[in-house]
């Protein structure tokens, strides 16, 4: 799934060295309209814990200089019928439906940061996903924030486990228990 762009750039430089026609360089520099790269999800650890889950991007000076990534999409699952998994199996009962769970896995990195801070867009979006009413969102954020250690005990904790802990925390809260009842 990872679309390797780095080697292509290397090839380009070799070609430029061999044949330094300016137009090639120009062409390279000009390909930038709509430049953007594709990134593939990559699971970090063997257990797909939230701590290692991330997107893999490309860096490197050449990549930046030429932005030769031409906004490429690498084929599969681009017209999303599903959200696309990040290589981690989602086992056990999907408390909030398959798509939601996959979505949740996808935002865990931001969500963990937001929970630690006590605010943020990912935290808000998770509240919306769980159906938490606007009036209860600030409270939801506060409760999640207060329970950071319970939600994220180790870096190997999976998205499903985080969600399970959230359900436990919410069930114990007078205002939030109605959302997990």
């Amino acid at each position, binding site marked *: 799934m990872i*679309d390797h762009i780095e*080697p*292509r750039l290397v*090839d380009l430089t070799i*070609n430029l060295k061999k044949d330094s026609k*300016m137009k*090639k360089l*120009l*062409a390279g*520099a*000009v*390909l*930038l*309209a*709509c*430049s*953007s790269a594709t*990134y593939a999800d*990559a699971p*970090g*650890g063997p257990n797909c814990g939230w*701590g*290692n889950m*991330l*997107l*893999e*991007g490309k*860096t490197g*000076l050449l990549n*930046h*200089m030429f*932005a*030769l990534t*031409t*906004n*490429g*999409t*690498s*084929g*599969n*699952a681009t*017209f*999303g019928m599903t*959200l696309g998994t990040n290589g981690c199996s989602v086992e056990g009962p999907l408390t909030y439906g398959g798509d939601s769970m996959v*979505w949740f896995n996808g935002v865990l*990195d931001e969500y963990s*940061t937001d*929970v630690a*801070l*006590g*605010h943020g*867009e*990912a935290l*808000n*979006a998770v509240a919306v*996903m769980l159906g938490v009413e*606007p009036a209860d969102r600030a409270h939801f954020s506060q409760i999640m924030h207060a329970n*950071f*250690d319970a939600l994220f005990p180790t*870096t190997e904790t999976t998205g499903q486990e985080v969600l399970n802990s959230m359900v436990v925390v919410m069930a114990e809260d007078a205002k939030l228990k109605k959302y997990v009842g």
Partner: protein
Amino acid sequence: MQIIIKVRYLALLFTLFCTASSYAAEPVSSSNSPLLQKAIASNLHLEKVWTQLLHLQKSNRSPTGIESQVDDARYFLARDGKNNPRAELLASIDALLINVEDVIADDHPRCRFVSREAWLRERLNLPAEAVPEQCISYYEWRGIVGTHSMSLVFPASYLNSPSSMFGHTLLRLDPENIDESSEWLSWSLNFAADTGSENFSAGYAFKGIAGGYAGKFSSIPYFKKLQEYGAIENRDIWEYKLDFTEAELSRMLDHVWELRDIQFDYYFFRQNCSYRLLELMDYARPGLSLTEQFIVTTIPADTVKAVDKAGIVTDTHYRPSLGTGIQMRYQSIPRKLKPWVTRISNDDEVALSAEFLELDIATRAKIIRVANDLITYRSRRTSRSPETAKKRLRLLKMISKLPIEESVVPTPVAPEKAHDTRTANIGIGRANKTDYAQLGIRWSYHDVLDRNYGYLKGAGIALGDLQLRRDENDVSQLQSLELVKLQSYSDRALIFNTLSWDLSVGLTRDDNRLDGRLSAKAGGSIGKSTQVFNNTIGYGLLTGSMAQYSRLKENFVDVGVRLGLLRYIGGAAFQLEFKLETRQDESPRVSGAADFNLPLAKNHGLRFSYTHSQNTGVDEAVIAGSAQYRFYF
């Protein structure tokens, strides 16, 4: 899962192939049918909507003088549908206006060409019919992608990449609950070149320009786009909420559905990401004519301006990238405490040291947050080791127990308020003891001195800069033709540990060399830059260039060092530079330059330049100065 999809594609391909050939074989013989006669008599195939649905344009290479920009046989029901709109119309009537009971599978043309069918029914005065319920995939997709509202999304330039200044655009489609500020649950709609996993070669670049790649629409959850641009590429994102109604968006999405997996020829200059999105908007609301303004090139940033000008933007939202947030919070830490950030991001135990704990709690919170952000930022760009993940968790735990202030990044000037992208200049100057008048034009786009509102400070990209000069001795000549010049002197290079650099390629003259004859010259610099004071970037670069004159042996390689300051005062910019250079054909040269750009209005400005250079061991200095008026259009 993938196998199933492939089998489905095969089935789809097969079905379409069969339908295409059977319908193509016969449109003439069935032209007795009253429906077809009616369609022919009323010239439906010449109507604008049909032209839009087939993406037709004038073409010299087509025998009919007209051709579809769709480059995919699966999109046409008539064999010659690509350049015969009438045949395609008749084949569509045959294929689409059939009894719903005959639709047995999801991949039937009635499930695919939903917009065509609806339009044909309307124009032929047939009662409207819902998309058949057998079309499971259609209903599934329309069910997940919301039509409550739509935004045009413009990821701005990204750090250290002036080339990304041309930008990119995509659409964001929102579900009902968008008013509850949950854009993370929205969907994106993106048109992009499908470069696949093809092996790269220099031909790649040309292919992109000449149209060798296929472009396709894709639709994935919007948060993935936020992660891609905001967290990895470090690009601030601008979102322009548009005033399309649910009905218009529904109409648009039906057509997007028709284009699922369908290939277009992709041309980087015009028929690119932005052009296709404008087309969709034109289709969504009859009467809009956004595409008509883009005849030669469609620069994404310009399409943002066009949409703004059309008056369909209801709200603008700025979403700073992770890097922008880090930069702002880092700057708010007192200078003498800044080293803690690096120390803690290297080793989180430092945060538990007695010395650090002496600081007040709010400052500690700030520092630990930035240290964690930096780790997150760096590890999202490459890969995150288990050790880094654990370190990050320990920092997050600390953060969760500290009082963190919500920090709001101030919104900069929006890209649609930026100066226009072509430039003309006229001015006078003196060089080599000769007065001259100069006239020039730059095809695109922005340099570090131009009015910086709406652009990234310290970054520039100039393409096709032509300068003509006439001197007091009535000699007129091509002074220079810069094909490309890229500049990246980032104010964040130290904190993010990136390099600053520039690059230029073109034709130019050097008064001191070979009687000022024209040479082909390529040069570049690489080094470091950082914010030294507020709004002031300081840089130090190693530089090198090669100039080739008309005879084979006439080539010169020069290397040197450049030190400079680039200061922004509002929209104005002031650059001071010192340069020491070894010269292949003469003694080393020392030079100092001062440049000042003063914007008068969005698209008008004045620029003053002065250079003083002297070769070691030579008494006489070479002095050049100029003043010019610049107009952006």
